[in-house]
Each structure stands twice: as C-alpha cells, then as structure tokens.
C-alpha cells in the first residue's frame, strides 16, 4: 500500500488532492455529488473583510481548452463564512484552507485575526487579477510580497500559504520574497491575465474587459513555474493550473509540487478531484512507489 498522505507545513491531508479557490464555493454544491472527506483539502472561495458583490456579467468566456473569468471576488465576507459555511465544512474529514484577499495590509491582518485557528491554513491571495485594488497589486513586486507576507505571518495562528501570480517576469524572485517574509508554503499558479473579443460586436466578451485564464490551456506555464519555484525555495508547494487528470497531477509533482489543486476541471467533471486521487494511488502502487513524496521534484533533467 502506497502512502498518499502529505503534510504541507503542518497541514495534514490524507491525499495530496485539493480543490482550488474560486472554483468550489464553500464545498456545499459538490458535496451533493460525493463525500467531501474523499478530498485532501478544500480551499474556499476568496474571502474579503466585508461582503462583495463582484463584477458585472458576463463574467466568463470560453477559450480554446480554457476559460477566462472575471468574477471579481464575489463573497459573503469572512464573518458570514465563519458563522455559516465553516461549520458545514467542519463536518467532513478534510483540511479547510481559507483564501483571503484585501485592499490594504490592515484588511489582510484583520481577516487573519478573525479566522484565528478556526481553519487548517490561510491562503494569502495576492494574485487575483479581477479586482482594481489589492489583489494582484500586492503580488507582482518582491518588496510588497515580502512586506505583506511578513505582516500577515505575524498575526497568523495557522500555516500561511502565499498564492503566487503568474503575471510576473520572474516567478522565482516573488517566491523567494514570500519565503523570506515567512510563508510556510506556496501555491501556484493563479490565473493568467487574458482577453477575448467578440468579433461581431467588436466588444470584449467580459464586462471587466480582461480576466483570468485557467484550464488545460495554462498547464505548461504552470508546470514550468512550479519547476522554477521548486528549484528556488525550501518550503512546500501546492501546484495548480489546468490539472484535469491524474497524469497531470503526476507531472506537477515531478516538477516539484508537494500537493495539487484541481479547479476548472471540476466544471466538466464534478468527480475530477476524487478520480485524480484514485489515479495517483493506482500509479504509485503500479510503480511500487512507497509514498507520494518519493516522486516530488524527480523530473530528470
């Protein structure tokens, strides 16, 4: 029996398959299809200090093997999450990670304090491309990444994961800044900034004009960035970006990921993360690999 369990900076999970923030709500919807305890972890929809209504529709455009979205962090706010959503998630044997986004460093800290030790980890969203303030503004300069990571870490009672934006020139220097700032783990990649135009109306399809690209189309970029970051840092990495099959997950782990997140693939197949976990286990057993960690970063260059 191969060991599928992973420990991401103290976040213990029975398998390395998580669901990515923004694609999974607070778990309820997909919980109607299967027992959420089959997942390693759930990263909840990005939370803000106050409720947010998000951007005007249309918020989605389909592109070749991908989607552009510009939801704009619609969410009920961190307090509503604590009172109404977290108790449901806590009925399941699954790691719960709160993804948080703010306009100021103070907002990030205020949310981190409110969350306290109620969740298994906090994912710092400094890479959302769909809001004007905050979000990606914090995530694209090494100094600001260092600073916000350090400030949030100082008030964070659980492992802190920093989610990186791919919309940068050198992902390694951003990853290193987060590590130096005290991040316990990294997750990457968030969506790639993109745009689609309706040639009949000559207007952008998204009302926000631009949006974040996800899905299989971004996978090679994500694998490359996970590989580069894994060379640069010592902290664990949660890899994501277009993972649709267990083979994709193996690719990310070989590139250097400790765990993986499934996002866009959930829309096509609600069972995708469960099937990926099953496929990973079968792969390990067929190849007589004792533990998932044994293949981490084992790409042969």
């Amino acid at each position: 029996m191969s060991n599928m369990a992973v420990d991401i900076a103290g976040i213990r999970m029975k398998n390395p398959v998580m669901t990515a923030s923004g694609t999974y709500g607070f778990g309820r919807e997909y919980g109607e299809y299967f027992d959420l305890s089959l997942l390693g972890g759930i990263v909840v929809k990005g939370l803000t200090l106050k409720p947010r209504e998000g951007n005007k529709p249309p918020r989605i455009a389909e592109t070749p093997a991908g989607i552009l979205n510009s939801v704009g962090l619609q969410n009920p706010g961190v307090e509503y999450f604590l009172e109404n959503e977290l108790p449901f998630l806590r009925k399941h044997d699954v790691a719960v990670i709160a993804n948080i986004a703010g306009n100021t460093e103070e907002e990030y800290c205020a949310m981190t304090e409110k969350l306290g030790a109620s969740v298994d980890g906090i994912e710092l969203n400094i890479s959302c491309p769909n809001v004007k303030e905050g979000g990606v503004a914090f995530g694209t300069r090494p100094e600001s990444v260092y600073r916000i990571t350090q400030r949030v870490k100082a008030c964070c009672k659980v492992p802190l994961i920093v989610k990186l934006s791919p919309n940068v020139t050198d992902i390694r220097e951003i990853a290193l800044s987060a590590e130096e700032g005290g991040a316990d783990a990294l997750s990457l990649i968030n969506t790639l900034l993109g745009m689609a135009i309706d040639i009949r109306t000559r207007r952008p399809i998204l009302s926000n004009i631009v949006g974040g690209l996800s899905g299989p189309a971004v996978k090679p970029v994500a694998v490359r960035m996970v590989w580069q970051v894994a060379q640069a840092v010592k902290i664990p990495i949660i890899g994501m970006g277009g993972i649709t099959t267990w083979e994709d997950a193996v690719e990310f782990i070989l590139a250097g990921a400790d765990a993986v997140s499934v996002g866009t693939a959930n829309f096509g197949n609600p069972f995708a993360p469960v099937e990926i976990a099953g496929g990973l286990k079968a792969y390990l057993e067929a190849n007589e690999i004792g533990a998932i960690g044994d293949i981490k970063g084992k790409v042969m260059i």
Partner: protein
Amino acid sequence: MVYKDCEIISNKEIAQGIYELCFVSAQIAEAAEPGQFVHVKIGKGLDPLLRRPISICKADAGQGVISLVYQVVGRGTKVLTEYGPGEVLDVMGPLGKGFPVIEGKCAVIGGGIGNAPLLELASRLRSCDAYLGFRSQGYKVEEFNACCSQVQLASDDGTTGAKGFVTALFDSLKQYDAVYTCGPKPMMRRVKEMCKRDGVKCYISVEERMGCGVGACLVCACKTQAADGSLHYSKACKDGPVFDAEEVMLDE
C-alpha cells in the same frame, strides 16, 4: 441528481437552426421540474471545455425520456447537432430552480428559443394560454395547442402568426393569476412591466453564460433586488434560472 452518459434517441432540426434532441433517463424525467435545465458535455476532448446548459423542453416520466430543444449559436451547439441516435451524451441534471406550478388561470409568454422550457410547464398547468413569438418558422406549436386553452403566435417576419413582437398580441394580462416568461431580455422586460401594471404574479427564466452549473463558480451572475431594496448578484444556475419578476432586475 444525475451525472451520467445517456443514450440519445433522436436529434433533428425542427425549425431553421433549432434542434430537438431526445435522450433516455428515467431518473431525470422523474425528477425534472418545468424550467429546470441539464448541463451537457459536448464532445469528449478539452475543446469545447465547458458544459452547455440546456433547458428541459419536455420530461416524459412514463417513457423515461427527456427532450431538449436548442438553438445552434456557437461551436458547442454546432457539434451537438452531429450527435445521432444510439450515441451517448454526458448529462448532469436536472439543475436549477424551476417554475412554480400555480392552480389558477395562467399564461406562458415565450420568445425564440425561450419557448422551449415553457412547454413542460404548460403541460402541467391546469389552465394555460400560450403566447409564442418566433423569428420566422415556429416549432412545438402543435404540442402547445394540445395542452393550452388557446395559443397565439407572432413572428418577426410574419411566417408564423402575426407579424411583430409577441408582446403585441395582448393589451392586458389582468385576466391571469400568473404569467411565466422566457425569451429575449427586452421581451421579458416588457412582460414584467405589464404584469406589474396589471398586478399579476410573474415568473421569469433568465439566461446567463454559465460555468459549473451547480452554484460553485459564481460566473452566471444575475442582478436581483432583495425585499429591503438592496441589490445583489444571484446565481442563475442555482438560485434561478427562474426568478420572481419582482426580484430580478433585467437591466444589464
């Protein structure tokens, strides 16, 4: 809720650019409420990537058959026309909140492809008049005739019924206890205004670009107004696609 491959019985063009696809699913046919939709994966590969939400036109619980009527609008629906009898279709559903079935005298008012989800509803209403608008050629008119007290037709070019908008077929909706509408936004806006003027309960089925179809991804935002007057984005897939006309804004 069902998520499985369903066998296709037929897939035929029933009016210009409009197809009817029937597939077998006893579970969906049994569970479906009028106004609900199924989320269909078209093709096996990564492109098109997203499922396509298609309203249920008819759910025959006795035969265990679902009928979908869809318009060819893009790549996905174009590929869907190529499916034939005996092939299987990957279907999730039934999804969303459907039309509440009201006992009194009702009217369904549809436009274009929006007539399709009104058929199952009309067949379940005890007393129903139908006002159906088409671009040109009509579809499913016989079946509306079979379950409605009266059916009035209009089309943009005069091919089917009166020439002009479906909303020109009536001056007042006062005689109805409830009105149900699905179709182009300007048409639904007009029906909503008339119902408000005439003090008639009105239900609207909206269409938005969708992602997950189950309420997790928040892309199919539809502006709604709460009882306190505050504005919110509801999920067309989970909170809708059917909304009370008083709550749905239809302004963007």
